[in-house]
């Protein structure tokens, strides 16, 4: 694995560097309706570099085999590569041990696993604290166990600018709060939450903390030991890896306390009809044949990030965010939702009273991919009393020139209504 490169200057990529990065992503050369593709829907999923695609092709053409069971050569090789991937992810988020990395199908499954396992450990009347800016994946699993077992869900409100209301948080965290599950970066507002502060406060209260890092790992350096969170979850496909991959990080002692979530092969030590004993970490939580190709691809995506340098990515994206925000604000009738001073390159906005769907359809016809609607965060839409937004979410391969294309397109749309 190539080390991160902190020696790179903290600035946006030069045109040549940008071109080099873009050339690694074959899809970016595509034309849509005869226009050069501008892909600004990275919050939904990112494109994949060629090396990720190659790693999957290579797996199937040279060592496809099931892991952890065969005595034969190919199975051993597949197992080795998959376990190397676990180490790559461990180092990427600086977990203490590789066995603290559990492979899942995505952040959604990671949270469902935690909700299911924790549901057996909590007592009636216990409280679970989330925030008003959670993705539905960090709301609904908790509502499901609350409804079934009599726990209570509490919600930290958000301020007008899209920051968490920390004064309200202080009041909401009580001796009854057994779990705090919050998003590190909002997929809709872009807000980077002060999670270290939340984690410390929660721990003083003996509250276990889950961080949803789905929109954070591809933009910010993550160190789970420094954060001291108990669990950290993310999806692979939002960080240049394949769909159907995800990670659940948990502190070893925490994971050991949790009952398993799915039963099946690989997660057991011994099975008889009288009693089954469970395997050790991480396999206790990995029933069935894993997404081997996906995991291999995910590790390759992380090699890409490491090679590019997460600090360099963050700086490039910060430059794009500033440039984009200034250009957008100059258009009369623009309302930006999420104006935290600490945010990633995600911009949710509305233009006059034009419906976000109309803007999305017309941008699409000009080759620009954005997401419109509620972005799986309906409570945020209720908070601002809007039907939805247009969301542009940027990534490492986006450029100022693409933002110019986007702004020109918006001007054109503005004239049509």
């Amino acid at each position: 694995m190539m080390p991160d490169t902190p020696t790179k200057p903290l600035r946006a990529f030069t045109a040549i560097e940008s071109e080099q990065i873009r050339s690694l992503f074959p899809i970016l050369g595509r034309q849509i309706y005869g226009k050069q593709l501008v892909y600004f829907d990275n919050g939904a999923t990112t494109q994949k570099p060629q090396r990720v695609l190659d790693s999957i092709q290579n797996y199937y053409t040279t060592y496809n085999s099931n892991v952890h069971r065969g005595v034969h050569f190919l199975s051993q090789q597949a197992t080795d590569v998959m376990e190397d991937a676990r180490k790559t992810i461990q180092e990427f988020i600086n977990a203490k041990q590789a066995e603290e990395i559990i492979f899942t199908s995505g952040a959604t499954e990671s949270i469902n696993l935690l909700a299911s396992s924790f549901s057996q450990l909590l007592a009636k009347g216990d409280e679970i604290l989330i925030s008003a800016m959670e993705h539905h994946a960090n709301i609904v699993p908790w509502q499901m166990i609350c409804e079934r077992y009599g726990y209570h869900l509490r919600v930290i409100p958000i301020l007008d600018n899209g920051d968490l209301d920390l004064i309200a948080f202080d009041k909401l965290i009580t001796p009854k709060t057994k779990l705090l599950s919050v998003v590190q970066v909002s997929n809709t507002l872009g807000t980077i939450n002060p999670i270290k502060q939340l984690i410390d406060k929660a721990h003083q209260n003996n509250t276990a903390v889950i961080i949803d890092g789905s929109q954070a790992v591809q933009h910010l350096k993550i160190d789970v030991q420094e954060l001291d969170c108990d669990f950290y979850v993310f999806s692979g496909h939002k960080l240049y890896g394949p769909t159907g991959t995800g990670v659940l990080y948990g502190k070893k002692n925490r994971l050991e306390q949790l009952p398993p979530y799915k039963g099946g092969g690989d997660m057991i030590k011994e099975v008889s009809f009288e009693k089954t004993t469970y395997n050790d970490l991480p396999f206790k939580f990995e029933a069935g044949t894993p997404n081997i190709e996906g995991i291999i691809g995910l590790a390759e995506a992380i090699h890409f990030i490491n090679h590019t340098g997460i600090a360099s990515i963050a700086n490039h994206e910060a430059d794009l965010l500033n440039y984009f925000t200034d250009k957008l604000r100059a258009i009369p009738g623009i309302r930006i939702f999420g104006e935290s001073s600490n945010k990633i390159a995600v911009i949710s906005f509305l233009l006059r009273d034009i419906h976000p769907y109309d803007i999305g359809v017309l941008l699409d016809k000009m080759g620009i991919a954005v997401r419109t609607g509620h972005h799986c965060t309906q409570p945020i839409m209720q908070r601002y009393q809007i039907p939805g937004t247009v969301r542009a979410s940027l990534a490492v391969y986006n450029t100022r020139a693409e933002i110019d294309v986007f702004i020109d397109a918006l001007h054109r749309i503005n004239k049509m209504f």
Partner: protein
Amino acid sequence: MSIAEKEKEVIEEFELFNDWMDKYEHIIEQSRQLPLIDELQKTDEYLVRGCQSKVWLNATFKDGCVYFTADSDAVITKGIIALLVRVLSGEKPEVIIESQLSFIDRIGLKEHLTPNRANGLASMVKLMKTFALGFKLKQQA
């Protein structure tokens, strides 16, 4: 004018535009021609649920023909509804039930009518036909 003639007319109109944006300008223009549903009827009873844009639809039956009124909070959706209403309104129930609406495909708007498109238009076409079926059954009774 028969449904086929009306469809032909719409297709010919859209053939005048080569550029997608011009086609959409025309759709936005069409939205202004839509016979609007009564504001008081913009309730859940007349709402066609779509994920992103809302559509309200009502129909009346007069002299053996069906007449639609509708509205949407998104203008492009409204424009496409206007095209559908333009073609189907004033037709006999059985004609509406049998209609294929292939003109939507011919003018390049098929994507808007696919069931997974989150705008309620696919459900709306179904509802237009359901209205027609209801009137037909009533007529027979």
